[in-house]
């Protein structure tokens, strides 16, 4: 039985992953949807809950571990990837999750995020992006739009925003995806893909902060607009969108552009998604599709295979034991030049 695939006969239910702690996010917070989806997703696998560890930094979303009936560690601001990395290095059989936000992961903890991904440590990173600092009550974040008026930017933010997925791609992440709190079904599918991936899985989740940045993604993911402004990526398939599935993304002079689509016709310049390209420029191009000029892509941008750091680290230990024998403490102490005094 491969426990890394959803079980045919699941032995757990969502409730098995619900902790006794009262959830304390604001009513209507997008985090509820993410929590429930994570719990539902884990219940699909016959992986016992003691094998899961949720590690977070600081921020609203970083309260997540308290609500999961698994092992958990609510650490300090931005550092969750480091603690997760250390844990995974000594306990490779655990399923290690990092829950972070746009401030925690991309501002104070940006360095760790980059290096965790380039090492390809086999953990799953969920970056909950609401484009605002929530827990500190409403300052602009590194993903807030330019000109954003907040408590700390009354005349508008003069910080140009960062694109989470570009950071992931530049960091040579082997799995890069985007989903949204408004679509739990899609989110569940992405979480399953992330779990199945060996290596660092980076998932950006658009999340609504109802108090400080309500409807930030509404123009894209809102009920009335989503079909025209979201495009879902499917490996090997062209990027088609629109309520009537009559629009598609084409490549013109290395730029993605929208155009009419008729399924009976063939289009040499239509953009066909490929997750596993050797280089990341296809995925990078997708990250540049932004509202309002373009529909925004959701799904798996990139999924490639590369040896994981934790496995390579263990391999070196095993190789050293093979080459030199399991270390004999006496030999270590008596190593180098010794002499006797009688």
């Amino acid at each position, binding site marked *: 039985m491969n426990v890394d695939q959803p079980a045919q006969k699941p032995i757990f239910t969502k409730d098995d992953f619900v*902790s006794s*702690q009262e959830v304390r996010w604001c009513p209507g917070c997008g985090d509820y949807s993410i929590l429930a989806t994570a719990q539902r997703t884990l219940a699909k696998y016959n992986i*016992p*809950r*003691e*094998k899961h*560890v949720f*590690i977070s930094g600081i921020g609203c979303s970083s309260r997540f*571990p*308290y609500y*999961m*009936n698994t*092992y*958990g*560690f*609510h*650490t*300090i601001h931005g*550092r969750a*990837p*480091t*603690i*997760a*990395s*250390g*844990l*995974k*290095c*000594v*306990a490779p*059989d*655990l399923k290690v999750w990092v829950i972070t936000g746009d401030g925690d992961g991309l501002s104070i903890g940006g*360095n*760790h995020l*980059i*290096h965790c991904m380039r090492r390809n440590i086999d953990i799953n990173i969920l970056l909950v992006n609401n484009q605002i600092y929530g827990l500190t009550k409403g300052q602009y974040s590194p993903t807030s739009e330019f000109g954003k008026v907040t408590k700390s930017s009354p005349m508008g933010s003069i910080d140009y925003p960062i694109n989470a997925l570009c950071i992931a791609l530049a960091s040579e992440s082997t799995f890069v995806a985007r989903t949204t709190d408004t679509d739990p079904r899609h989110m569940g599918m992405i979480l399953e893909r992330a779990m199945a991936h060996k290596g660092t899985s980076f998932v950006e989740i658009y999340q609504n902060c109802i108090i400080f940045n309500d409807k930030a993604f509404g123009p894209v993911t809102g009920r009335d607009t989503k079909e025209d402004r979201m495009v879902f990526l499917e490996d090997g398939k062209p990027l088609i969108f629109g309520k009537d599935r009559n629009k598609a993304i084409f490549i013109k002079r290395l730029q993605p552009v929208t155009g009419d689509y008729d399924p009976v016709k063939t289009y040499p310049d239509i953009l066909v998604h490929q997750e596993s390209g050797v280089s990341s420029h296809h995925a990078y191009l997708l990250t540049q599709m932004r509202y309002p000029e373009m529909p925004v892509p959701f799904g798996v941008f990139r999924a490639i295979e590369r040896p994981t750091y934790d496995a390579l*680290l263990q391999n*070196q*230990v095993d*190789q*050293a*034991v093979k*080459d*030199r*024998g*399991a*270390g004999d*403490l*006496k030999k*270590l*102490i*008596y*190593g*180098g*030049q*010794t*002499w*006797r*005094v*009688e």
Partner: protein
Amino acid sequence: MAMTHSKTITQATAITVRFAGDSGDGMQLTGDQFTDTSAVMGNDFATFPDYPAEIRAPAGTLPGVSSFQIQFSEAIVFTPGDIADVLIAMNPAALKVNLHHVKKSGLIIVNESVFTEPNLRKANYKTNPLNDGTLQDYQVMRVPITELTKNALKEHPLKLTEVERCKNFFALGLMFWLYSRDYEYTFQWIKKKFAKRPEIAEANIAAVKAGYSFGDITEAFNVQYQVKKASLQKGTYRKITGNEALAIGLIAGARLANKTLFYGSYPITPASGILHELSSHKHYDVKTFQAEDEIAAIGTAIGASFGGQIAVTGTSGPGVCLKSEALGLAVMAELPLILIDVQRSGPSTGMPTKTEQTDLLQVLYGRNGESPICVLAPQTPADCFDVAVEAIRIAVKYMTPVAILSEGYLANAAEPWKLPEIEKFEKITVVHPQKTEAEFLPYARDPKTLARPWAIPGTPGLEHRIGGLAKADLTGNVSYDPVNNQKMIQLRAEKIQRIAEDIPALEVRGAKSGQLLVLGWGGTYGAIYQAVDDLDKDSSRIGQAHLKYLCPFPRGLEKIVRSYKKVLVPELNSGQLIMLLRAQFPGVVFEGLNKIQGLPFQVDEIRNKIKGLL
């Protein structure tokens, strides 16, 4: 080898030699070889490498000078010697930088070949010190080392630059002759080191021989010295530096606990040697992680500790600053963690390669909130081994971070290490809880140690959450209860204090009461010991005690300090330990001796201070 005793042989008890040259001249290597041979010949010794942070400052300049000092003796030695009997200066800059480290009437051997106009200028000499009377108080031996090396290697198929690089071996050979050392050990080492370049090995060996013969033949040297074997305790010895001893001690501690050793670290002088050493011992189930920064280094170690393994992070003072917040997390999470701080001269980047004891207060108090940790300080390079094992024992028994305050001086200095019988070491018992009928309480405490259970992820039925937010007693759930908060802070402080019941009582050497106690900590041990020994061998006016445990203090400290009229506290800082002692033991007369020059104490400095107090 053929010893040609053509000259007078004089017995010497202890000799201090200082090798000095350009960073690229191989002075550290030369000193190491001289040390190894002295060790094999049965002398006791202590060494002190003194080198710049610049990897290769411009050749011949003052910042580029690298030095290595060794004291070797037929008696037990405690320091690398205050001041050198002999200086080998490979260029004018080395002479200039090191002249004040040589005693008056001491011997200075200079590489005359390079005392040229341009080199003198680089060393800021306006006139040639060999001729202008600068060295009139010394015995000066002008040896054209570069020329003689070139001559000796005429037949060897090397490039000129390669030939010139052999000159340190000529100098080594000369020193071998002067102190009647056997060169066989160095030959073996050269052959091994240059196994892939036999022509280099042969040239280096020839250079050693040439230097040796030069001493023997030249009329300039008319005395050869001998230093007898020291009466060290019976046993097997090896030469060890503090960083090596820490690394080996950590591996031993993890082994005694039957655990993986995880070392998360970011390269920093003078702690990097620990990372290098550990990364070469992976077959001891050692996992080293070179992190992206200091914070990640401690973060990964905390993760590994959460995962149930022995977790260590090593750094120097600037790195400790960056790790402070994470260290607080380890305090709050009550996880075992070893923090190594190989102290260097500060503040800020300071003098990275120079030693100091200025991080005591930082390690004790440099965190937000009240977050006590256990703090240990090794006394000698070899002591680093014992301290590493002890730190692991305490960390896992009390579920706490333990800091090891080493020093740049200890990290790089070498001494003979009497090898311990590791099979007689007590195992370090670690019990990870398993599920029982009772509800699992992650913050329930052992009634004796106050340690919380170390339940590790993967254990069925013990799923729980920890973190940096204030913890409710027993359950560890997030709590804002004011009374609970105070209780938890007091419990954590009490836990650290209870370690005092579990460590050796402080010992006093010499007078148990009376006029003066000299109380130190860390790497000043050797210099203090020697100073007290020199002054008080026959009388018994002085007591000496040395703190290896800085938090908590060992039992009996108060009684001890109150048994003397005065307590002298020598420290390589402005008075950090003394501040703690004054706060804790009011009424006792504490007197400081403070040095913050990036250099260890000289025995003489402590001796003079003591004399003034008696």
